[in-house]
């Protein structure tokens, strides 16, 4: 526990000590606010004139596809490249403690960024009658979905030696997870296969949160997904020995 905390603290300070963390957060915040309020088509907040954040939460998975790889790309590959992995792996700590510490710090960074978007629901609240229960569920889903994407990014980062390939591969993986829950694609596969693919996809499970439904099965799905990927990550790390 103590070791996880030390790794966590060190990793978090890396996000907040380097400009890259702030740059990506501001970029994300700017983009999500713009897309929500002005949009790219007729679905923007000002067009719909509905006091709801449904549109806001439908942009989140799309932005994650770019934002999450940017957070996770350096986590392992940078250690590998600079050689610090050799120090890290010979410290008196267990592999899973490093993996968990690194995961939690990235998740924490994402959560802080996401919490900065709370200004959007507050703005909507001032302008109309907003259902805060709905918003709350949306945020829970957003954070869980982010955790799942981060675990993917983390394991891909451990499989690559440089940040650029980690970024691109994670982007592809996140995109794949996203379109697996995308309706037109699922229709193409038909009811049975489509339903199966949808069950595996992350965005499908996010959907119920977006609608404000609390389904413990979806929470369980995200938690298990994260656990499995982190477990695999520990194996990848051990495999390198």
């Amino acid at each position, binding site marked *: 526990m103590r070791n996880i905390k*030390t790794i966590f603290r060190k990793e978090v300070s890396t996000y907040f000590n380097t400009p890259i963390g702030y740059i990506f957060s501001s970029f994300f915040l700017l983009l999500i606010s713009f897309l929500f309020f002005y949009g790219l088509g007729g679905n923007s907040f000002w067009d719909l004139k509905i006091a709801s954040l449904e549109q806001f939460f439908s942009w989140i998975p799309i932005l994650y596809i770019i934002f999450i790889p940017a957070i996770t790309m350096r986590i392992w590959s940078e250690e590998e490249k600079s050689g610090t992995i050799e*120090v890290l792996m010979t410290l008196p700590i267990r592999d899973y403690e490093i993996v968990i510490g690194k995961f939690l710090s990235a998740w924490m960074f994402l959560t802080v960024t996401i919490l900065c978007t709370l200004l959007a629901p507050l703005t909507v609240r001032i302008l109309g009658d907003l259902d805060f229960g709905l918003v709350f569920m949306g945020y829970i889903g957003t954070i869980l979905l982010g955790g799942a994407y981060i675990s993917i990014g983390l394991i891909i980062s451990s499989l690559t030696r440089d940040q650029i390939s980690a970024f691109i591969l994670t982007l592809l993986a996140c995109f794949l997870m996203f379109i697996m829950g995308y309706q037109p694609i699922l229709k193409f596969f038909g009811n049975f296969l489509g339903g199966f693919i949808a069950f595996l996809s992350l965005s499908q499970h996010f959907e119920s949160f977006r609608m404000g439904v609390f389904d413990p099965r979806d929470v369980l799905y995200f938690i298990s997904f994260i656990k499995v990927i982190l477990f695999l990550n520990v194996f990848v790390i051990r495999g390198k020995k």
Partner: protein
Amino acid sequence: MLRVENLTRKFQNKVAVNNISFSVKPGVITGLLGPNGAGKTTTMRLLTGYLEPSSGSIYYGTHAFLEDPITIQQKLGYLPESAPLYPEMLISEYLNYMADIRGVATLDKPSRIEKMVDICELSSHYNTPISFLSKGFKQRVALAGTLIHDPEIIILDEPTSGLDPNQISHIRTLIKGLGKEKTLILSTHILQEVEDICDEVIIINQGNIVANSSVKNLHSGFSVSIQVGAELNQVKPLFAAQPFLSVEEFPEINESGFKGYLVHMTELKPELVFATLAKSSLPVRELKVFKRSLESIFEELTRK
């Protein structure tokens, strides 16, 4: 005491370390020597748990390292080649992080950090990001991080690379001091360094140990060089029997009839060479124990 038995490590089909066995006593500085790609770094990585061996075992005292590496890693300080560091951290942050993660007790932490800053001369840039530092400075920061928990076993991969001559002698003095009580292994390709600070030397070539002895013994060998006013066919019969092995000629020494020869023996007894020559009544100008330079030994052992 560190004991390595039949350690082998393969990468795909390439054997990096081939069935090596050796032991290292505390209080003795052991130098790991070898040409580039000989397997020095791989050996060190195996000893520290960064890599796992394909076969063989490592014991620290009676403790089998591979069964529970964490216990040993708590007492281990390993400085990898090229001294990797986190460039975005300040020296102060890095030392604090290393102290925490290596399990230095909270009460001892300030004094340990202060001591390392003092020993490694880091105070002038204590609050500077590591990326701004010179190579020698970075090397010292990495060394400070390695020694912060006062490890019992110290493994240093080329600890003086990138340092200027003053820093080199400073670090060597530091290492010598540490070597008095700790189990210390260092790798280097600077032969001068081995002569200066190491007590024992292990020479590795192509994954095999080709020499493992004290630096002193490695030097001397069992040969005596002589200058005699006689031809090889006159000298050779004198040294035909035990403990003499053979006589070799030094073609470059030939002054007014006096020629240089090298007498190889099973053990070093120059007095026997003297007695034999005295009996033969050949004119002798010089007789001395032959000392080979470490360079020539190294070259000879790692030629293949």
